[in-house]
């Protein structure tokens, strides 16, 4: 059986065609990512609240809370507490909390996976941060509503990386 797609040959793929496809993809990808329904799917897209002063109920229960001092003296032992005010029901719960800092050579600090048996999505630990100004990001993943990100600025006096 002949398949039309299989008959596609490399020599027919001209430079003009390539430019046309590239332009179509360039328009389609940003347009698709602007659709809210696709953003809330379980992709790699983090959701952020539209207005931090007036959170909706959905934003309030999904946004991670970060407790981290604004100035850390010793970057080798920076205490951090992450929690999410989210119900931990059998069918609706926080799956994970991930801690990151993009200014550090080791970006991902750790990822804690929860189950409904945890009762609350809460984690306290100590992380290493490199010196200077940085931003610690915490990403919480809900099993129904995807990933939610929050960040906190921090200044580290003595780097610990």
């Amino acid at each position: 059986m002949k398949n039309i797609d299989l008959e596609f040959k490399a020599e027919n793929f001209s430079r003009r065609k390539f430019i046309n496809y590239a332009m179509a993809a360039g328009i389609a990808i940003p347009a698709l990512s602007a659709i809210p329904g696709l953003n809330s799917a379980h992709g790699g897209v983090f959701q952020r609240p539209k207005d931090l002063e007036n959170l909706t109920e959905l934003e309030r229960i999904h946004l991670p809370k970060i407790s981290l001092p604004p100035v850390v003296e010793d970057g080798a032992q920076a205490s951090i507490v992450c929690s999410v005010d989210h119900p931990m029901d059998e069918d609706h719960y926080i799956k994970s909390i991930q801690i990151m800092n993009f200014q550090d050579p080791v970006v991902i600090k750790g990822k804690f996976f929860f189950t409904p048996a945890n009762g609350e999505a809460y984690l306290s630990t100590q992380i290493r941060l490199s010196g200077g100004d940085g931003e610690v990001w915490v990403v919480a993943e809900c099993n129904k509503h995807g990933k939610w990100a929050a960040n906190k600025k921090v200044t580290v006096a003595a780097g610990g990386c």
Partner: protein
Amino acid sequence: MAEKIRPPRLRISRRIKKNKVFKVKVKFDHPSFTGLAIADDTSDPVFNRAIPVTFIRNMLVYYGDELVSRLRLSSGIADEPLFTFKLKAIKEAPIKVVFIDNFGKRWEASKKIKFKG
């Protein structure tokens, strides 16, 4: 910096009530090195791997026989870390926390949950 590795210690509240959420604290004296050193700090710091990397890779939490939580870590975690997390007291059963480092070595600590009141 942790010179010696000591077995993990588990701390749980003595007053645990059924169906209430309680805190679990685990302290593990284990070294954590990124192994990185600044090779060139003239402009943006450039790091290279100066010493072998050492860190706790996984933490597994069992409540009874069930794996209830798991933590995947990197060398970005501090030396001698203290982890605090929460569990819902649904049954009287032991809590076991297992640590595995990047060399595959394994340590564990456990404590039995008993309800009060």
